[in-house]
C-alpha cells in the first residue's frame, strides 16, 4: 500500500467522538416528548448542509441556489404523497431521484466560469424553479402551499405522531445513512481528487484528474442529498410551500455550513445544531428582534474566527486521543 492509501485508511477509522455523537442523537429518542420537532428540523438542516458541504467544502463549488434541489425533492415527495401513495420511503427515493436528474442537468451549467458565475447561475436556477412552482398553482398549490399531503405509516407500522418521535427517528436514520455514504465517498480516492480540484483545478487536470467529470458527479450527488432533505421536510411536516425554493433557504444553509465548518464531514451537523438552537433560543426571548441578535452573533463569530473556536475543539480532541 502506498502512502496516500495508508493515509485514507487511517483517516477512515472511526473515532470515539463520532460514535458518541450518534449514540447521543439516538438516545434522544428515549426522552419524553417535547423536543422531537426541533431535533427533526436540525436533522433535516444537517443533511441539507452536508449536501452543500460535498460541493462547497470538498469540490469548491460555491452555490447560492442549493435550495433548488431541496425544493424539487420536497415538491416531488409532497405530490407523490398527495396523488399516488403515502408511503414515506417511496417518496424519499423518488424525491432523491428527481433531484438527481435536475442536479445532473444543471451541473453542466456550473462547469463554466468562475466562482462569481457559479453564484449567479445557481441562484438563477433556484429562482427559475421557484417561479415555475409559483406559475403552476394547479400543481404546486401556488402561494397557498401544497394542501392535503397525508403520509402513510413508516415501514407500514410507525405512524407520524403529533410529538414527532417517528419523524425524528426517520430523519435521523436517513441523516445517519447519508453521512455514512458521504464518509465513504470523501474518504476515497474520488474524494481526494475532489480536494485536489478545489485547491487547484488546473494542476489537478494536469495530474490526470478528469476535472469536469468529477465535478458533474459530485454536483449530481449533492443534488440527491439535498432532494432527500427536502423530501424529509415535506413528509414530516405534511406540507410544502413555495418557501422551499426561496433564497433565504440557500443562504441559511450556507451560513450553517460556515458556522459548522466547510470541508469537514460533521461541519453541517455542528452548524445545524448551533444555528437552530440559537435561533430558537433567541426567538423565544424576543420574537420581534431575534434577527438582530443572530446577525450580531454571526459577525462576532466571523471576527473571532471559526478556526479559533473549532481549533480549540480539535486541540481538546487531540489531547484526549493522546492520553
Amino acid at each position, binding site marked *: 500500500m502506498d502512502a496516500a492509501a495508508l493515509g485514507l485508511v487511517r483517516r477512515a477509522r472511526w473515532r470515539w467522538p463520532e460514535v458518541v455523537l450518534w449514540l447521543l442523537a439516538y438516545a434522544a429518542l428515549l426522552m419524553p416528548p417535547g423536543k422531537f420537532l426541533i431535533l427533526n428540523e436540525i436533522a433535516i438542516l444537517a443533511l441539507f448542509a452536508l449536501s452543500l458541504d460535498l460541493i462547497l467544502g470538498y469540490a469548491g463549488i460555491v452555490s447560492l441556489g442549493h435550495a433548488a434541489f431541496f425544493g424539487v425533492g420536497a415538491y416531488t415527495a409532497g405530490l407523490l404523497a398527495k396523488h399516488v401513495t403515502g408511503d414515506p420511503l417511496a417518496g424519499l427515493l423518488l424525491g432523491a431521484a428527481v433531484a438527481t436528474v435536475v442536479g445532473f442537468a444543471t451541473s453542466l451549467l456550473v462547469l463554466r466560469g468562475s466562482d462569481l458565475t457559479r453564484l449567479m447561475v445557481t441562484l438563477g436556477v433556484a429562482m427559475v424553479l421557484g417561479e415555475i412552482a409559483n406559475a403552476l398553482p394547479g400543481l404546486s398549490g401556488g*402561494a397557498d402551499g401544497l394542501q392535503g399531503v397525508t403520509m402513510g405509516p413508516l415501514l407500514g407500522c410507525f405512524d407520524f405522531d403529533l410529538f414527532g418521535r417517528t419523524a425524528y427517528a426517520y430523519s435521523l436514520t436517513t441523516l445517519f445513512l447519508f453521512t455514512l455514504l458521504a464518509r465513504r465517498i470523501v474518504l476515497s480516492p474520488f474524494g481526494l481528487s475532489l480536494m485536489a480540484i478545489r485547491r487547484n483545478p488546473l494542476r489537478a487536470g494536469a495530474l490526470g484528474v478528469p476535472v469536469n467529470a468529477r465535478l458533474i458527479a459530485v454536483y449530481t450527488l449533492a443534488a440527491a442529498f439535498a432532494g432527500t432533505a427536502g423530501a424529509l421536510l415535506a413528509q414530516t411536516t405534511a406540507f410544502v410551500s413555495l418557501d422551499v425554493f426561496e433564497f433565504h433557504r440557500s443562504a441559511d444553509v450556507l451560513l450553517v455550513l460556515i458556522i459548522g465548518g466547510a470541508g469537514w464531514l460533521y461541519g453541517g451537523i455542528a452548524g445545524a445544531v448551533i444555528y437552530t438552537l440559537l435561533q430558537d433560543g433567541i426567538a423565544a426571548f424576543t420574537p420581534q428582534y431575534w434577527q438582530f441578535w443572530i446577525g450580531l452573533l454571526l459577525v462576532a463569530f466571523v471576527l473571532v474566527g471559526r478556526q479559533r473556536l473549532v481549533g480549540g475543539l480539535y486541540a481538546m480532541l487531540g489531547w484526549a486521543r493522546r492520553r
Partner: protein
Amino acid sequence: MVRRQLAAALAAVALLSSAAQAEDAVKVGLILPMTGQQASTGKQIDAAVKLYQAVNGSTAAGKKIEVILKDDTGVADVAKRLAQELVVNDKVAFLAGFGLTPIALAVAPIATQAKVPEVVMAAGTSSITDASPFVVRTSFTLAQSAVPMAEWAVKNGINKVVTLVSDFGPGIDAEKSFTERFKSDGGTVIESLRVPLRSPDFSPVLQKAADAKPDAVFVFVPSGQGAQFVKQFVERGLDKSGIKLIATGDVTDDDQLNGMGDVVIGVINTHNYSAAHDSAANKAFVDAFKKANAGMRPNFMAVGGWDGMHLIYEALKMTGGATDGDTLLAAMKGMAWESPRGPISIDPQTRDIVQNIYVRKVEKKDGELYNVEFATIPNVKDPVKAAKK
C-alpha cells in the same frame, strides 16, 4: 427505604405542581409574522392582544390567561412546527394569530389532531374554516368585502372593470367573488390581472390595466402592500387618466393610509373596519391603542386580534374555565358581541364571522386621511360558503 420515600414525594410534588399549573393558567399560543414582509400584521395584532389584556385584566373565569408569542417569519412550515411545539410542550388551550392564509391552512391539521381551537385573527381566504372543525375566525373573508364592492360599482355607473389581485388564496377569492357579482349585476370585467404575493412589481400590470381603458380598476393586495401599490399607481399616471380606483379595504389600510398621500383621497373601498368608525366602543379602542403604541393607528388586523381575544375570554367564561376543545367550540359558536367595528357574531354553522360591511371613501379629517363610512350592509355572511349551500 428513604430513597423510595423521597422518590414518591418528588413524584407527588411533580404531579401536584403540574396539576396546579394546569388549573391556574390557560395558555394561548399566538403565532404571528413578527419579522419578514408581513411584520406589520404581526405588530398590529400583538399590540391589540396586549391592549386587550391591559384593559380587561389577565384573568378570565378565575384563570390566568397567559399569551405565548411566537414569530413564524411568515413561513408556513415554521408556523406548523411552532404550533406543534405549543400544543405538545406548552399545552396551550388555544392557537391564535395566523397572518397569512397558507399559515392558517398549514396549522389546521394540528388543531384537528390536538382538538385545540384555532382562532384566525387575520387570514382571509374563505376555505380556511373548512380546513378543520376547530377553526374559528374573527377577521373577515375577502368575499365579504368584494361582493358589496361589486354591487356598489354597478349602481354607481361603473360598467367596465379590470381586476388586479395578489396571486394567492384571498386574492383569488376576491377576484372570483367580485367578478361573479359584477357580471350578474350587468357589468363587464375586461381583464383579470394577478401579481405574485412575494416582492410584487405592479408597474407592468398597471400598464396593462391602463391600456384596457376601463371605468375602474378593482384591487386587492394584502395589508402592508397598499402603500407600494398606490405609489406605483401614481407613478404610472393612472390617477390622472380618469380610471377610478376601487378596492377592498386592505389597500387603504389604516396603518399606512397617512403615508400614501393625498392621491388616495376619494378612493372608494369596502371593508369591515375603519379607525374612523363612529361608535363609543371604537373611540375608546382607538384612543387606548394609540396611547399604548406611540400614536400608531389600529387597522383591521388589530381589531381582528382584539376580537379574537374577546372570543377566547368569553368562551372561557361560558365553559367556566373548562379547556377541552369541543366544549370551547360549542361555546364559541353563535357568540355575538359589540366590537369596535360594530356588531359581530360567529356563525354557528360555518364558525366564520358575520359582520357589517361598510362602503367607505378616503377623506381628510383634521389633517389626517381616514376611510369614512357612508353606507352599511348589515350582517354579511361569507358569500363563498353561503353560495355552496
